[in-house]
């Protein structure tokens, strides 16, 4: 089976769960959230990111590419993405750090070795490892993920999984014995809105949430708030009703205000970004939502990660 790709290993990760953590970002996601700020996380294959503003059209990449994906025309770089196999041969010879390959193979051993490097910090801070994505629960090779979780746990390392919940529940069952907490995203309670913004239905996501809660998983709910998309009071109230009806008691709820820092990455991947329809929610609105949750009896509400 295909080995899952990792597109980033983030040390001193302090916004993805408790303490000081190492977050391993797996590549590939079945969702297409319009506000996604890591577009390089979406596809399951390796791809080349081009930071065009750094390029000086020196032509080194033209010489090094075996597939003719680069050419210089009128003193400018023309990149043929269709010809690029993301082999990475141009990377070392790019003089201006214009090029980056998103996606790298690791063995479980290698990831474990990386994760163990920061063991002293996990121990002092109550941190550990967070598996994120993309969507780590939707990778093709769940054996890999389950084995990684099992071995991390055996090293005494806390394991968190950051997930959209859009994966078969069997995948969750496989890692449940090893996972200390799930950072579980709810993008919208409204099925139509969810389909429109994220590209998939939310039935599976909500069903998985109910089952995880019943199975006793520790849950940190994470709600991205995008003005103009999913911030209507009505839907927030519906979500709170849903949580109560299903006896879902999150350990913490993070309200994550949208930002557009990922915008530039879309250009680097030659993909469109619909910035018109999304806005950063004002601070007051975030506070309002927080108060709303608290008024409905939810505790431990935090704005931000």
């Amino acid at each position, binding site marked *: 089976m295909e080995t899952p790709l990792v597109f980033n290993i983030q040390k*001193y*990760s302090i916004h993805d769960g408790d303490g000081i953590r190492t977050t391993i970002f797996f590549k590939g996601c079945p969702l297409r959230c319009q506000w996604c700020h*890591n577009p390089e996380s979406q596809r399951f294959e390796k791809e080349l990111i081009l930071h065009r503003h750094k390029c000086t059209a020196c032509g080194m990449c033209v010489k090094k590419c075996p597939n003719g994906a680069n050419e210089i025309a009128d003193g400018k770089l023309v990149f043929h993405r269709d010809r690029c196999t993301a082999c990475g041969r141009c990377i070392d010879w790019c003089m201006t750090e214009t090029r980056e390959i998103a996606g790298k193979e690791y063995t479980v051993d290698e990831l474990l070795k990386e994760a163990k490097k920061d063991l002293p910090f996990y121990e002092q801070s109550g941190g550990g490892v967070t598996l994120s994505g993309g969507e780590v629960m939707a990778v093709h090779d769940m054996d890999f993920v389950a084995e990684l979780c099992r071995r991390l746990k055996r090293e005494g390392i806390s394991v968190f999984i950051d997930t959209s919940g859009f994966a078969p529940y069997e995948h969750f069952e496989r890692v449940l014995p090893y996972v200390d907490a799930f950072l579980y995203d709810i993008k919208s309670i409204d099925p139509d809105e969810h389909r429109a913004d994220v590209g998939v239905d939310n039935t599976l996501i909500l069903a998985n949430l109910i089952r995880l809660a019943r199975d006793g998983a520790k849950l940190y709910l994470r709600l991205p708030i*995008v003005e103009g998309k999913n911030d209507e009071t009505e839907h927030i109230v519906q979500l709170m009703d849903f949580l109560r009806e299903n006896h879902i008691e999150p350990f913490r709820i993070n309200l994550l205000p949208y930002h557009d820092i990922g915008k530039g990455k879309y250009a680097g991947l030659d993909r469109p970004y619909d910035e018109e329809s999304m806005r950063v929610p004002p601070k007051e609105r975030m506070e309002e939502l927080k108060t709303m949750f608290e008024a409905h009896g939810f505790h431990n509400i935090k704005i931000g*990660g």
Partner: protein
Amino acid sequence: MANAANQQDTSFNVNTPERLLKDNERGCTERIKRLRRISHATQPHIDMERAKIETEVYKQYEGSVSIPVLRAMVLKEYFSKKTLYLGDDELIVGEKGKDPQCSPTFPELCCHTIEDMHIMNDRKLVNFTVTQEDLELQEKVIIPYWKDRAVREHLLKAMTQEWRDCYEVGMFTEFMEQRGPGHTAGGKNFYIKGYLDYKAEIEEAIQNLDYFNDPDAYDKEQELRAMAIDCDAVCILGQRYHDLALEMAAKCEDPQRKAELEQIAANCAVVPAHKPETYWQALQMYWFTHLGVTLELNPWDAFTPGRLDQHLIPFYEKDIAAGTLDDTRALELLECLWVKLFNSPAPVKVGVTLKESGTYVDFANINSGGLKEDGSDGVNAVSYLILDCMEDMRQNQPNSNVQISKKTPEKFLRRACEIARQGWGQPAFYNTDELIQELLLAGKSIVDARNSGCSGCVETGAWGTEAYILTGYLNIPKCLELALYDGYDPMFKKQIGPHTGKAEDFKSYDELWTAFKTQLEHIIDVKMRGNLVIEKIYAEMMPAPFLSICTDDCIKKGKDYNAGGARYNTSYIQGVGIGTISDCLSAIKYNVFDEKKFTMAELIAAMNDDFKGHEIIHNLVKNKTPKYGNDDDYADSIMQTVFNEYKDYITGRPNIRGGQYHVDMLPTTCHVYFGDVMIASPNGRLAHMPLSEGISPEKGADINGPTAVIKSCSKMDHCSTGGTLLNQKFTPSALAGEEGIANLAALIRSYFAMDGHHVQFNVIDRETLIDAQKRPDEYKELIVRVAGYSDYFRNLDSKLQGEIIERTEQSFGGCGCC
């Protein structure tokens, strides 16, 4: 997951121009605000009174009394005649010169030329006012007498041509050419004994001298007599302040101030002659001692009140119980000491030393926390007051820091982190458990090791029992420069080291390593040979009997601090540029020998051209090479090899004071000077650019965040040094909220669990610093951490400012966006 992130709360970060303006109004009471304002608003100036009195004493007595006695007579005469200062509002009395911000000169060590006097007056940064009268005195009286007598002249004359060549091209610096041996701190003695008690001990020691069997008995008698004279000297100063305060009280019409003056007089009737009885007197006792140590000679790093919280706590508890002290008063008195330390700028330097350390900071360093001598946790109520004082006063001087042991309560650590997060560089964090290991390894007893601390920047010592003397910085990366050019200095066009072959002919990394090792060992030998001569010159010509009174076991041994009188006698050579050298060797090993991306000849050509026209090689060495600071064993193992070579070649060699040499890894600001004397280096660093500082990675080389930096740094064996220095820069957002504090505390605990020695933080964003560089007037109060000390950003030269801006800024979130 692809989530949106939060907007961080950064309101704690107070380095905005508006907030900085308020710094003029710091202090816990109106009195402190007034005192602090005077201290900060007064222009530092030169004070010739000491030099004048000293010259008179020498003219009258030189040749008719022994050298130690002559030295003591200078201090006694100065304390008998010096102009006294007792300012409005003051509760702790005594100044080094006539008034606040005076810098007395020490012509017996280095005699300023008229040109020096003009430079110090006219310099744009860190200047000292010199009056016409000062100039005339210097020209007519001081220079004619001292120009050939100053230690600096003797010392430079005694050096070999080889030493002078190395010194001139910046292979190393020499600490003792302008300032006396120091780096020391007081122990507990002068909090439990008065100078009359010391004098009785000294007289007893004289009585016990064995003239029949001890060939050194006469020398010891002279040294002890000098110590006794110095006891009188400081008692005279106390008596004069007693008289002055009474006199002023008699004339004072404000009843409150009158009572204060009477209390000051009462205090000075007790200290320094007798042991202090109250918290207030304990602080006054320290201050008189500080004046004695720093006016007898101009020792490096001034002097330090030892483990202040430990020493003060018995007085604090007694006075609180008696109802004669409350926390506000206790804090106010501490803040009075802070003002006194700020009033005392560093002695003015000349020449290369001026270049390497352009600052008013005199490095008095106060440690709080740590352990008690019985091994239990040392944090007490005064420790927290010192943190409050530090936060309140926000001064780069004194250099106030905390010691953290595994027994230190989390509350104390987090309170210290809270202050560190405000972004002005204090407190730095020292690892008590590691300090103790260092000292035990170097042969100290466990009790003396627990009574230890860091003075100056990060230098470990057994306080009150050790003379640990730093002798100068050594430019490690420049040794590689010599190795690549067959011992020839390509910057100064001069053969400096032995012939070790042309780089182009090296067939393997091992051959290169051998050449580097040969150059490094040669330079260390040249430095050390000079050191031993210099130590001897100080031991014979410049004893420090006053400092010897305060340092065990000088009285018992009848020997001077500068001649091996202390219980422990250590010398240090400070290695600079470990990050740069590791990356340089990694760049060659990886690109030339392992991956064969280019040849040595091509690399040398690129270096000769400062990488101009060699962009491909520059890119490879700068961006595509394993670098120290990323928890990558390829580069980190090179760091270990270099460090071990440096340490093993120095450690354990004898000094002339009966002790041994050890190494420190700290630069102060010398990494800027050492970079300035070098051409481009193999790691892509351009000519004249600064080297890496302390044990921090080369700027921009660490790209995997603070945990990776800390892991890399931990691969050095800190316990075998006398101190290492690690700088970390954070953006405010990375430390926001309760969690930010918790994570910072955990980061420190982790580093210390791995035996890291010291870490300090600049918490400030790049934009603010760039803005401060452009508009210095609006950031007058902006303090940043430089090396083992903080300084006003505006006082740094533009190169050092740039260097601080470029230090890698750690700002991490979960997904690279928070």
